[in-house]
């Protein structure tokens, strides 16, 4: 059965060109980038080139790019590293209720260990935080504001330019988790007032387990993972050479395809949203109706439960996800959907469809044919009464 993969916000397949390059590195490049002899210099050159590619894609200087083991580590390094650097001076973190766990749990973990005071700002029904609320939350002890660029569950884009401008004016570091937007939206740190920005290869057709943190020159960040001094001491440990090469190449390719590809996906997404709303009574679009990731359509269907939706669609060859990640042990409804003000039952029935490079109009048609009967069946089993 041909499968239709509509969960590109969870991860993307590795671009074949990227996979080939990585395979070549794994087979042919044996040195440690810290070694000064030929094999080491070859590995170092590859890491440097990837750093240039990442820098180029986001308008940064290569010296401002630190490679990490993924988006989670980039987020941890941003919060923990800035707090550590400001120890004794400032300990306030301002963030939002719909951040990824890598931010929220890190902020709360720091608070639980007495290392931070955390302000978690609410969002509106569309998932947007108010820049004014951020401004009001900043005080003389605030070390960092962290507001994600595009939300992974509901797709909403945040007013990062406005928030960044406020942070700059107030002299507070501004971090944005751009894991969902790098590669999909134009990002240029020369014009965007963002001091730290998280990047994650496997969201733009690169490998899993490698990411990067942009750290604007002058932003004070202490090392969180201590050791041999790699990455100029900002993140130590032998470099994941093949992964870093993959990250660089994937981002270079994504940047070159971005404009055309994102527009194409946005069009398919618009059709998907329109048609689901027309075919399924009572479908609730979650996230901002227009100011959202170009590839993201997310809904809640009352009277259904997300895992059952996902499993039912899986059986018909569709890969999708739900905010209620029931099997992973986390049975609570998504903190993001609750933060949007949805009631718990409705939040349980969430479905996220995220498009990718390989998504075609036929895929959308197939999904549109498969989904309504499944929703109807689950509603029948639960006895939900649907007001059309």
């Amino acid at each position, binding site marked *: 059965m041909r499968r239709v993969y509509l969960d590109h916000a969870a991860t993307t397949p590795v671009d074949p060109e990227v996979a080939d390059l990585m395979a070549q590195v794994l087979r042919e490049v044996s040195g440690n980038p810290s070694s000064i002899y030929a094999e080491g210099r070859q590995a170092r050159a590859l890491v440097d080139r990837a750093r240039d590619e990442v820098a180029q894609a986001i308008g940064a200087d290569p010296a401002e790019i630190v490679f990490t083991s993924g988006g989670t580590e980039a987020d941890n390094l941003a919060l923990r590293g800035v707090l550590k650097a400001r120890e004794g001076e400032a300990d306030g973190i301002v963030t939002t209720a719909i951040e990824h766990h890598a931010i929220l749990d890190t902020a709360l973990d720091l608070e639980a260990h007495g290392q931070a005071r955390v302000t978690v700002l609410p969002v509106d029904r569309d998932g947007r935080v108010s820049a004014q609320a951020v401004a009001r939350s900043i005080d003389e002890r605030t070390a960092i504001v962290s507001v994600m660029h595009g939300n992974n569950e509901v797709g909403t884009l945040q007013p990062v330019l406005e928030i960044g401008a406020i942070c700059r004016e107030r002299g507070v570091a501004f971090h944005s988790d751009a894991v969902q937007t790098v590669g999909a939206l134009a990002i240029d740190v020369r014009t965007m007032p963002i001091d730290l920005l998280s990047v994650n290869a496997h969201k733009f057709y690169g490998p899993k387990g490698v990411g990067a943190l942009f750290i604007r020159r002058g932003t004070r960040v202490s090392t969180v993972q201590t050791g041999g001094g790699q990455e100029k001491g900002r993140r130590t440990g032998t470099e994941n050479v093949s992964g870093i090469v993959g990250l660089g190449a994937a981002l270079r390719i994504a940047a070159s395809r971005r404009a055309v590809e994102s527009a194409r996906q946005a069009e398919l997404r618009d059709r998907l949203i329109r048609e689901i709303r027309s075919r399924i009574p009572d479908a609730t679009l979650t996230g901002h109706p227009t100011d959202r990731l170009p590839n993201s359509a997310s809904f809640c269907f009352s*009277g259904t*439960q*997300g*895992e*059952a939706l996902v*499993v*039912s669609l899986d*059986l018909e060859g569709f890969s999708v996800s739900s905010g*209620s990640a*029931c*099997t992973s*042990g986390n*049975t*609570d*409804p998504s903190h993001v959907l609750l933060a949007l003000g949805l009631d*718990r*039952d409705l939040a*349980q029935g969430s479905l996220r469809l995220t498009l990718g490079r390989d998504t075609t109009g036929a895929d959308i048609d197939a999904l549109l044919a498969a989904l309504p009967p499944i929703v109807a*069946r*689950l509603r*029948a*089993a*639960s*006895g*939900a009464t649907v007001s059309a």
Partner: protein
Amino acid sequence: MTEAPDLYSDAALDHLTRPRNAGTIPDPSGIGSDTNPSCGDRTVITLTIADGRLRDVRFRTFGCTAAIASASVLTELATGLEADAAVQLMPADILRALGGLPERKEPCALMAIGALRGALLDARVRAG
């Protein structure tokens, strides 16, 4: 490349896609419900009893695959049993009938049993 160990069984998936006895009996001998507080899933079972035997058993489940399959298969297991035998049904019977459930999903079987027992108790009370 190998398959994951913690899959839903074909039987469980079959109950998801073709739920047996989904619905509510309009005028039941008994009605019972149970919920899983950790996720908000819930199951309602209605049944009719005649001559001490369960004639018709129906379920409503708002919940995950395991919750739906557990309730669905339980209606099959219970139908035709004497009430005294039905009350002895255990989560293990559901697991056996479904060919197992993924590890963390076993509370879902318990919820179905809870709803059935509730309905049986309700029937007993109503019967006086």
